[in-house]
């Protein structure tokens, strides 16, 4: 329970389609949120909603991970139907992290490898096109610098066929230092819209990027209590070491984005 608002109840973390969009171990993001919330004495409640489930009445933090085309086809229509509710949440400041396939489906649409166009939830003004056969997937270690000054450098691993393009109202989440990012061409990575972030980074991304994790947690607390908390810095010994190791690997193994 936060000291800011003792009667506000637990922070509600909604894990979306975690039994379908689970191919790239983005479950680590849920574990990291639970772990860090415990370190910060925040009371949280994790709710899962998957195929056939209604969305809960409210949420403070929404997480969704990556899946293959097959999994994306299964959830796309239902997720698009949740679009109005998710967009309303995003406008009222609910924190969100959508990774890879989840990021693609939080956009306007995704044209998959078979050429089928899947509808998106339209939380983000982005569109994604999977390239034809023969074109390489964007796979590798990635190091980016976030456009959010509080977040700074972010490390992870990307593995996607789809190329994502930002619409006119979209702001990138980060600039690529090493790796491919949204489309390998324009140097952008992910998208940020208010308190909602879309990104291609696995790793899992939150455990070794504690500043990004704090950014999301702070906004979740703010949404629950109405007050932006000021988090005390944590030691983050292991987190920093894992972050540095991943950054070093990206510098060594991935192409520098010119």
């Amino acid at each position, binding site marked *: 329970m936060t000291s800011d608002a003792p009667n506000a109840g637990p922070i509600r973390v909604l894990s979306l389609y975690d039994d*379908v969009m689970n191919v790239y171990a983005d479950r680590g993001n849920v574990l990291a949120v639970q772990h860090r919330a415990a370190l910060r004495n925040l009371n949280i409640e994790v709710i899962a909603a998957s195929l056939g489930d209604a969305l809960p009445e409210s949420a403070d933090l929404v997480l969704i991970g990556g899946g293959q085309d097959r999994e994306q086809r299964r959830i796309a229509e239902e997720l698009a139907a949740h679009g109005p509710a998710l967009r309303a949440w995003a406008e009222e400041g609910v924190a969100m992290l959508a990774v890879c396939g989840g990021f693609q489906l939080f956009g306007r649409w995704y044209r998959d490898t078979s050429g089928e166009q899947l509808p998106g939830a339209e939380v983000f003004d982005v569109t994604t096109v999977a390239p034809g056969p023969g074109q390489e*997937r964007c796979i590798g270690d990635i190091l980016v610098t976030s456009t959010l000054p509080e977040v700074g450098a972010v490390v992870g691993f990307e593995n996607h066929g789809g190329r994502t393009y930002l619409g006119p109202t979209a702001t990138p989440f980060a600039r690529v230092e090493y790796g491919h990012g949204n489309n390998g061409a324009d140097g952008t990575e992910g998208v940020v819209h208010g308190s909602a972030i879309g990104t291609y980074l696995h790793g899992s991304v939150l455990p070794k990027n504690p500043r990004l994790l704090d950014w999301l947690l702070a906004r979740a607390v703010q949404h629950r209590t109405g007050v932006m908390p000021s988090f005390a810095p944590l030691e983050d010994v292991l987190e920093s070491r894992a972050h540095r190791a991943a950054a070093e690997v990206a510098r060594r193994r991935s192409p520098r984005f010119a």
Partner: protein
Amino acid sequence: MPTPPRSTHAPGASIRQRAALLAGRVARDATRRLGRGGGTALPGLVAGTLAPDLIEAAGRLPGLGAVTVTGTNGKTTTTHLLAAIAREAGWEPLTNRSGSNLARGLVTALVDSAGATGEVERRAGRLGIYEVDEAVLPTVFGRLRPRVAVFLNLFRDQLDRYGEIDSVAEGWAAMLPSEAEATREEWAPTLVLNADDPSVALLAEDAPGRVVWFGIDDEGVALPGGEHASDARFCRCGSRLHHERQFMGHVGHWSCPACGRHRARPDIAASAVRLDAEGSDVEVRIGDACLSLRVPTAGLYSVTNALAALAAAHALGAPADVALRAIAAAGPAFGRQERFEVDGRHIRIWLAKNPAGLNEIVRALIASDGPKHLLAMLNDGIQDGKDVSWIYDADLERLAPQIGSLVCAGDRADDMALRFAIGGMTAAAVIAETEDALDAALDRTPSGGTLDVIATYTAMIDVREAVARRAGVGSYWEDPS
């Protein structure tokens, strides 16, 4: 004994092949002299480049023909067990070694068995038993033309290399000859399939000939709840599969409520399984006969590997009692629950490659009481998987109540330590370097106790070398198994 297949491409049949195999021998001996490891890939690479048709030759050994073993987990152990059965049956198995399971590894197997003239000796009981990487198999299957093809399971593994797992299953289905092709080519491989894995079982629909099923019948060893690393949730018809029970991930008793597809009744089944810390006692049903088997390595996945080897032996016509005896007497395969004695402590090495495998290791470890002393090693090379995300998909939390001591090591030791920390376990030391990490882990293991080393592929190779040296055991290329 089954009838030998045609053997028009006996290895070493052409001058070119003999020259290539000799060049491979030179490459092998040179790498060993230079201390560059066991030379499990380079000799095959050299020989295979000089004579590409050595792949065909590997499948047409004069004698009993070839068996392929594929799947995400258990290839090396199943191959190892099947080779033990073949020896016990009086045959002469030829296998690729130590997980060297790409095309060049198959050719290395021929290099290893070629004599000084470059000829592979012709013997009536020769049986090629090859483990083949699940993504590579479609590229060599039609050239190898195995008599028997074993499919163990399909889990997510190294997505950085394979992209998406669906393409692996599609490649398997596409490589099998159709019935018309099988008749025309006189090649209808027997498929040995895991009835419990829907991704594997659905291949029966594409089988050109006989299918031999293996699986676990004992409901008592099913997981109480689902696991996180569960991959095949959907049927070919597009509907969600129903699992009446799960043994590991998506492997279990499954059916499709929409189209009616369902798990087949296994020909070779574990009807009762009793797991202990060292292995398991299994009642095996073969047809209508019930026999007892001691599986000498721990974990339910070891039972599945043994069933697969039994089913393959059954397909080849080996007597059941011979097969059971061979499995009970078989030692562990390289780096797979191998045991050593160092400084008055037992060391057991577990290879962990993916969430499904790591979950099974965790399950085997917590099957016995008492504190566990662990050295967890995470590397991120191509053979390990460059993406280390997968460690978050394994349910390491289950170890927390029994952790006695923990040391994390490897190129990504920090990621490993962070994963354990998030699971509520604190590493006493985080040391990238193998020898120092081994010292630190042994220091924390009480005298007479067991240090369990869990390592990804290249880390396993490293640590096994270090442990073997300390234990006074030879290098892996000296291992005659």
